[in-house]
């Protein structure tokens, strides 16, 4: 690993100014995504702005019907927070499935939302990548997953983002060019190389999530092992029910695209009964949204199958429990 310049600011403003949008500078939170990548030579940062000392990033508050979670809150703290469990239990559920317990003790919400995209050809040692002549995402020119493609298909594999998306989260960002608020969904792009629409030096300060009340929600991920593994596919669902009809429905996916995304056009099913035609249409909508590629050791076909299966199962189960 290269020599590093590490600074540890005490406030958001100081962090942003220390970073200053400089080339090769990066925010360091729990380091559970960044450090393994740096050790493999995937990110060649020279300067790290360690944001774990910033108190205001570690706050959780509930005001005006919305939950506000600082980007520096660890996933462990998020899972344990009474406010989160009361007002947005879905977030605790999703966060509890990230990596393993020791990771969650260090890993932060911000780092989770901002984690790099992943690919079998990319998340390898420098020795391996050198021997395999690299790929477009780092040091190389062609995509090993789809050699004729002009883009990178690495997938975004965070567990918390889809849960945030179905609850309609918004993010507060502070950067060298000022502060802004935008929907979380607007932060992501369909590009394995550049999946975040963040300006240089932009710092995620907090996430605001409307209270979950009225929604019945769930998150499930598929992985080979019961812990540690990233999602091969993950599905978050939030549903509202009126009588025998769907009042509202949101579905978001992770692990199956370069970004975590909401399945579009589900509004059409508001006010309808979840019959077999609905489930067939749901599967079709999810199939259209996702595009897993051969970027994991597990075949893409499997990831597609379980993403569809999980969406169907979760929506069905949650609709049932919403009625209960």
């Amino acid at each position: 690993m290269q020599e590093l310049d590490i600074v540890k600011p005490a406030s958001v403003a100081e962090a942003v100014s220390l970073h200053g949008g400089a080339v090769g500078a990066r925010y360091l939170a729990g380091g559970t995504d960044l450090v393994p990548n740096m050790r493999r030579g995937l990110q060649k940062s020279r300067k790290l702005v360690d944001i774990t000392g910033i108190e205001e990033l570690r706050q959780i508050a509930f005001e005006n019907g919305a939950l506000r979670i600082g980007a520096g809150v660890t996933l462990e703290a998020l899972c344990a927070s009474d406010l989160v469990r009361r007002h947005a239990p879905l977030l605790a559920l999703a966060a509890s499935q990230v990596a393993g317990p020791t990771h969650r003790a260090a890993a932060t919400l911000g780092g989770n939302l901002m984690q790099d995209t992943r690919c079998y050809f990319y998340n390898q040692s420098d020795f391996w990548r050198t021997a395999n002549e690299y790929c477009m995402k780092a040091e190389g020119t062609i995509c090993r997953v789809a050699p004729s493609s002009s883009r990178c298909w690495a997938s975004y594999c965070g567990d918390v983002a889809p849960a945030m998306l179905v609850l309609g989260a918004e993010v507060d960002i502070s950067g060298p060019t000022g502060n802004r608020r935008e929907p979380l969904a607007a932060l992501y792009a369909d590009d394995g190389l550049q999946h975040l629409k963040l300006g240089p030096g932009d710092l995620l300060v907090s996430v605001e999530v409307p209270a979950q009340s009225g929604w019945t929600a769930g998150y499930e991920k598929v992985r080979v092992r019961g812990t540690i593994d990233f999602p091969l596919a993950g599905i978050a669902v939030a549903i509202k029910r009126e009588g025998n009809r769907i009042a509202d429905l949101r579905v978001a996916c992770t692990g199956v695209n370069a970004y975590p995304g909401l399945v579009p056009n589900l509004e059409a099913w508001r006010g309808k009964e979840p019959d077999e035609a609905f489930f067939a249409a749901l599967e079709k909508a999810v199939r259209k949204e996702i595009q897993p590629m051969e970027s994991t050791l597990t075949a893409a076909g499997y990831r597609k199958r379980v993403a569809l299966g999980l969406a169907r199962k979760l929506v069905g189960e949650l609709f049932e429990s919403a009625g209960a």
Partner: protein
Amino acid sequence: MNTKPSKGVGQRMPLYDGVEKVTGRAKYTADLFPRDALVGRIYRSPLPHAELIEVDVSAARSLPGVVAVITGADCDIPYGILPIAQNEFPLARDRVRYFGEPVAAVAAVDEETAERALKLIRLHVRELPIIDSIAKARAPDAALLHDKKPGNIEREVHNEFGDTAAGFAAADLVREQTYHAAEVNHAQMEPHAAFAAWEPEREQLTLHTCSMVPYYVHKKVAQCLGIDTAQVRVIKPYVGGAFGARVETLNFEIIVSLLARAARGAVRMQLTREESMLTHRGRPESETRVKLGMTRDGRITACECEVVQRGGAYAGYGIITILYAGALLNGIYDVKNVKYDGYRVYTNTPPCGAMRGHGTVNTRVAFESLMTSMAAELDLDPIEVRRRNRIPGPSVTPNGLRVESYGLPQCLDKVEEASGWRQLRGKLPKWKGIGMACSHFVSGSAKPVHFTGEPHATIVLKLDFDGGISILSGAADVGQGSTTIVAQVVVEVLGVDWRRVRVITNDSAVTPKDNGSYSSRVTFMVGNATLDAAQKLKQVLVEAAARRLQVEPDQVECLGESFHVLGDPSRAVSFSDATAEALVDTGTLHVKGTFTCPIEFQGGKHRGGAVGSTMGFSYAAQVVEVSVDPVTCRVSVDKIWAALDCGFAINPLAVEGQIQGGVFMGMGQGLSEQTRYENGKMSAANFLDYGFPTMAETPPIEVFIVESIDPNGPFGAKEASEGPLAGFPAALADAVRDATGLEFHEWPLTPERIAKAMEAREREQRAAARKTVRQPATAGAA
């Protein structure tokens, strides 16, 4: 000190070094690195197969801070664990045969310099075809990895015992099936590490390494450095797991020694996880075709088995592995007619080696799977079928192996009852199932790898003026508990207070040679040698006490901390006084105990007949309960019941740990573990992608110890660690079949594999439904 004799064996006690290990106080090899030692790093081949035209290290050599650079030119002496198959050089010469094979090495003042030096090394090569599968290796026109090995066959084995043709003719049901098991790695917790110090003034080398076989390392390091074994000293600190990964001399141990001599100083070397996995020596991928004949009532009349193993680039233990795969078709059931054909092939993948259950696991998995499947076809209960094939009593197997104690039937009883098998088998709700299988393993290979004529195990007890008993043991404790066992045996025999005893292990300058921790030989052989030593020391002390008490030795009773005249407890001498008396005229006592397996236990007369030979087999039975998720197709193991006949549990707590560990490792192989290659390049060489199970997937494992009291084991003890592994993958597949109706012949049973099978079945069902719709009349008529 205690007044009553202390108990040693049969005690549930924490491992002798357990507290150090769990509290982090234990120092492993890398913790002991001297700060001022140079950093050694290995330059590895980026290609799986190529002719080396030039290894250009000139730029690396002239980088400031680099003290030594070595290449294949620095050592032209091949090594290998088997004296008859030494075809590996510590650093490749002329040719590289697997991705990651060491080509050059540097010693530098720090990590960064060493790293930079590696980047300056240039290879000029001619690439050769990559032979990375069994099929490619065996293709008629395949490129050859080694000159004198036509067909890339390292070793073929063919033998037949009894008359299989007649056996099959006598069967009511004959079935044949091919099973495929993926290659797996030991994935031991501690990555490889070693440091070597060359003392230029004395021309001596001291090597610290994480080995299971310090004696073999000692020999091979001396051999490759071209120095006398007397110039070498090998020390093995605590080892963080091994499972066979370190059961032969590994390239890095020789490389670090060569570097130390070249640098005329001390060199430390810590391999990364990826490098540790590339060093490999794991269980080979294998194709196992089994054919069994069975009578209507479940008796096996004949067995035919063909095994092909993808051995990797060099010989290693390969010949033994392919022999083991056939030898242990025997020794668990009463089968009189057994034919075996084995092929070990060379491929451009890292060399395989000995891994827990050496050679026998995939054969057992295949055999057990077919046995259960045939039982189902005959409408027989699989546990009952095993009972019907039990070995009747002490006997010799068709291939000349001796079975003296046999607790398999009791193991079956235990797991059948505890699991509620009769109530659950075939009766669990959809997506839940229960399955079973058996397995066995040797308690030490009765014939050592290197035949020297020496005893098979030696232990020295040192007693001096202080009254402390030092057990000098060369047995390599790699977590399995050998240090604990020798201490328990000594305390049991002498009855002394525990505080009097110390175990000093694995320093070749101090401790007696031991062959090493392989083939589960240590408790049996070293245990027996310790028993011999302790009894001899006791005799010395009893005689000394008799002199003090002025009676005959047979009038003396030993109570551990004191010696009494029989029937007159008032006439006694203390342990210290007996020791003082024993030292008169002789001084420091060194009492030696040994053990040798008698020749009649050393296997059949046929070629390779020594492999599989042992004085006692452990036996295991296990039942596994699973759930299969219909959406994700993931198998969860809900509960395991495992019973093991280990002869006698010298330390029941340690035995339970070993059974759980063995079962767990079988679970890894069954569920999710496998090495992966991308064009011959190992590509899941890390703990995230390799996929061994975690605590989250580990269900409660209920363990039962069966004590058959082996006539030859120390206090009746046999092996307790390798035996319980092989049953798992077969029991798992059996349980998954019970849950889903799908039969699997390939491991691991990943969600993806199960999904594929489910999809195939769904397709078939859809096709059948279409057919029924289209041809209602025919379907109705049929």
